[in-house]
């Protein structure tokens, strides 16, 4: 009798426990089917949360498998949608400890629980957890970048406005660009064409965009001097843009009658096919000046060497670190990295572009100060720990997740 009372007391306490546990316990429908033998490891600490920094529609589940007991064969992740219908969303091996459910609606509450299976029988069930997926407008991992970019853009706008108001903005001489006029003049004197190679990448590449801006200036110069300008391209869109830009240059020079669309032609998208084609143009047309400006890869040396062999004055420029050495070795002038991007401002001397360049310099100065401060803080931090946190803060400021 005493034993029976104890059993009833335990059962009542258990029921009270279930009632108080709200929605953190396994659903009743599951409990009816699960053996609850407790020999099989149960999923513990099941967590469900919205995946941050996304467009929503996803819930991240993570869990740990209890260490004591028999390891299950597999895990079944169950889900109940807002309408109350339950479904199995996936079956996973027992060693997996997280899962992303990418088939949920934003703003709706979903419940999840995980069943531990052994020999095809659900032997244990986790607690039930809930989550709501939502979309985020702001990517929190890029806040530091947003602040720095905003600051730099503010400075750039300030300098652009200063330039527009007539403030004289100094820009140092860039040897390669100072030689543009000489190169075009040489071609005119020799009665040979100018060859402009805008790299092998498409118009979505920053270097190609920078190159096309320079092409506009070179086209204007060649139109003024009356030299033919040849522009073989590796991408059809680049060809279209180059045609427009060169035409604009000829119009600005008042020589639109001498513009020949056929001189700006598409060869092939293939890297070495393009290199072979440009090499052929070099040896047959024998240009007196060659511009290799843009994004280049392994074809850079092939082009630069062939250009050198035909005796052309060569001005090259790229932001590809691995190709710059070849241009330095084989060309007369080389624009290194950033100089390629500064070229448009240098050649045009437009206050808008010069202001932008000045603003970028301010950005570089900011980073330089940041590096010096960070290195000093990190170095002193080895001996005096408070400085370590300063270095860590600066590192965090420039960290993009």
């Amino acid at each position, binding site marked *: 009798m005493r034993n029976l009372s104890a059993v009833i007391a335990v059962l009542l306490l258990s029921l009270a426990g279930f009632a108080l546990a709200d929605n953190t316990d396994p659903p009743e429908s599951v409990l009816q089917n699960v053996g609850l033998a407790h020999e099989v490891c149960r999923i513990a600490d099941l967590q469900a949360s919205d995946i941050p920094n996304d467009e929503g529609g996803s819930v991240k589940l993570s869990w740990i498998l209890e260490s004591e007991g028999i390891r299950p064969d597999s895990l079944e992740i169950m889900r109940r949608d807002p309408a109350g219908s339950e479904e199995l969303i996936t079956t996973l091996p027992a060693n997996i400890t997280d899962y992303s459910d990418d088939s949920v609606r934003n703003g709706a509450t979903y419940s999840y629980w995980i069943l531990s299976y052994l020999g095809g029988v659900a032997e244990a069930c986790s607690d039930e957890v809930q989550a709501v997926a939502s979309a985020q407008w702001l990517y929190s991992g890029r806040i530091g970048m947003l602040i720095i970019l905003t600051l730099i853009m503010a400075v750039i706008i300030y300098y652009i406005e200063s330039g527009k108001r007539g403030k004289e903005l100094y820009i*140092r001489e860039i040897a390669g660009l100072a030689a543009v006029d000489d190169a075009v003049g040489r071609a005119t004197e020799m009665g040979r064409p100018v060859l402009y190679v805008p790299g092998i990448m498409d118009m979505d590449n920053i270097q190609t965009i920078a190159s096309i801006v320079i092409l506009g200036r070179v086209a204007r110069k060649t139109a003024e001097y009356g030299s033919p300008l040849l522009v073989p391209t590796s991408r059809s869109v680049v060809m279209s843009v180059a045609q427009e830009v060169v035409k604009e240059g000829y119009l600005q020079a008042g020589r639109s009658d001498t513009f020949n669309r056929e001189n700006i032609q598409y060869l092939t998208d293939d890297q070495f096919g393009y290199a072979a084609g440009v090499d052929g143009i070099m040896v047959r047309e024998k240009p007196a000046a060659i511009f290799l400006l843009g994004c280049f890869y392994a074809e850079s040396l092939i082009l630069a060497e062939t250009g050198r062999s035909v005796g052309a004055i060569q001005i090259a420029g790229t932001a590809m670190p691995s190709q710059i050495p070849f241009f330095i070795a084989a060309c007369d002038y080389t624009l290194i990295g950033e100089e390629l991007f500064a070229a448009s401002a240098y050649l045009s001397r437009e206050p808008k572009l010069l202001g932008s360049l000045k603003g970028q310099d301010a950005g*570089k100065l900011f980073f330089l100060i940041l590096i*010096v401060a960070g290195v000093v803080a990190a170095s002193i931090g080895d001996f005096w720990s408070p400085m370590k946190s300063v270095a860590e803060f600066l590192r965090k400021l420039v960290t993009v997740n």
Partner: protein
Amino acid sequence: MNWEILGIWLGAMLTLCLYSFLYRDNPFYKFAEHLFVGMSAGYWVIYSIENVLKPNWWQQMFPEDGGFNWIWIIPGIFALFMLARIIPKIAGLSRMALGMIIGAGAGVNMVGFFQTNAMAQVKGTIISVSSGGAWDIISNIILVVGVITGLVYFFFSKAHTGIVGKTANVGITILMVAFGASFGYTIMARISLLIGRCQFLIFDWIPTIPRLLGIGG
């Protein structure tokens, strides 16, 4: 016909035709060049249709499970704008498509460029120059000095005179040392490509000559 031997001979002949450029421009090189350019251009047309146009546009507009996504008409219209260049009267329409490509390209790449070329580099340079062994300290000092002086070299709004000029000189010297190392490294890779071609000619092509002439095995 032995297709394998035919392939080897074709490869070898075209290799020799292209290498003949080392002497001077000649009809053999011209033939190989035009074949290469023409075939690759044709190949890329088909590649673009099969791997870009179909999966990224057509199949998005008409999904396999049926239906019609009208939003994909918009890129189709922009593509037609590009083709408008053929007709001089409406050629100006192509500028809209070109403007979108350039604007979107610049905007999307700005974030990536800033992230990898500025933020990540700065983060990687905020290091201690007083911890670790002697070589670690020397290595870290070279890294920090290289980055700072290199950055000074790329200041365009300041004349390279006085202390700025001297700092910039250190920067460009370090850059040149790095370029020299990169040059040597890449040349080694190119030599290995040349060796690969030579091996093809010596071990794959030359042994087929006696077979073709009916000499030996």
